């Protein structure tokens, strides 16, 4: 992936030299052309196009923003409720992610999303222990959220 980005920059610089105008606008044009060339030549690269990976990252950011807003509304509801009748729980969740940075990212996302906080990551980093503020509506919903986050992170990281 880094190779494709380097190649794209290289093409952009070649374009600047060819048109002999060293401005940011000609750099942008060269970058677009390079993107098009890399897209046409996609079968010659091992691995995925970097553009699709960047797009996956943008989608992950959007998902994260949405979940952050929902999380805050949920905490708001728990706090302003006159009676404290939430049922907190700590539960274990298996994860399929392998790299350390993926697990760090996943646990940061979990911590900032509705009703869940990562308390502990097991030594072999296969299990996350998660504290949920309200187990009733969370536990089933949480699984789907986890799956969507895990899937989105895998979408970014798979080669």
């Amino acid at each position, binding site marked *: 992936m880094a190779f494709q980005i380097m190649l794209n920059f290289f093409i952009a610089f070649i374009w600047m030299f060819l048109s002999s105008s060293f401005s940011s606008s000609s750099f942008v044009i060269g970058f677009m052309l390079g993107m098009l060339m890399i897209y046409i030549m996609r079968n010659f690269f091992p691995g995925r196009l970097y553009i699709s990976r960047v797009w996956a990252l943008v989608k992950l950011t959007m998902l994260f923003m949405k979940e952050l807003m929902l999380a805050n509304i949920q*905490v*708001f509801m728990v706090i302003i409720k006159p009676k404290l009748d939430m049922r907190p*729980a*700590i539960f274990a969740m298996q994860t399929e992610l392998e790299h350390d940075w993926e697990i760090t990212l996943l646990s*940061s996302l979990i911590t*900032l999303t509705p009703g869940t906080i990562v308390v502990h990551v097991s030594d072999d980093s296969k299990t996350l222990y998660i504290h949920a503020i309200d187990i009733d509506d969370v536990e089933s919903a949480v699984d789907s959220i986890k799956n969507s986050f895990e899937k989105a992170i895998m979408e970014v990281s798979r080669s």
Partner: protein
Amino acid sequence: MNVIVLANILIVLTISFGAIFILITAIGLIRLPDVYTRAHAASKSATLGVMSILIGVFLHFWLIEDHFNPRILLGILFLFITGPVGGHVMSRAAYFSGVKTWKGTVKDELKPEYERKVKETSLKIKE
């Protein structure tokens, strides 16, 4: 003129949104029963609250005072990275120094792992 009014509305909205969420954090820290549920309030609402106040400040200086300040954007990014890690580290430290969960807690799957770790490292637990 109209643009300035619109910008002001946006700024006031974001800053008051942030202030409300910081207030919620403070109320949550007082009302919630144990350290883990408090960590929920502190790590989520405080992050979003400070973030939207910073966005409001950024918009004010950009749209009204005509001064683009990227340091505020970097501040938002750093807050995003460090906020959840702080919540995680504090709740983990609390659990491993033996802080009890609230009596309403229905399930605790970390207990076996905790006891195993304690046996392994011969940590002192306070009863």
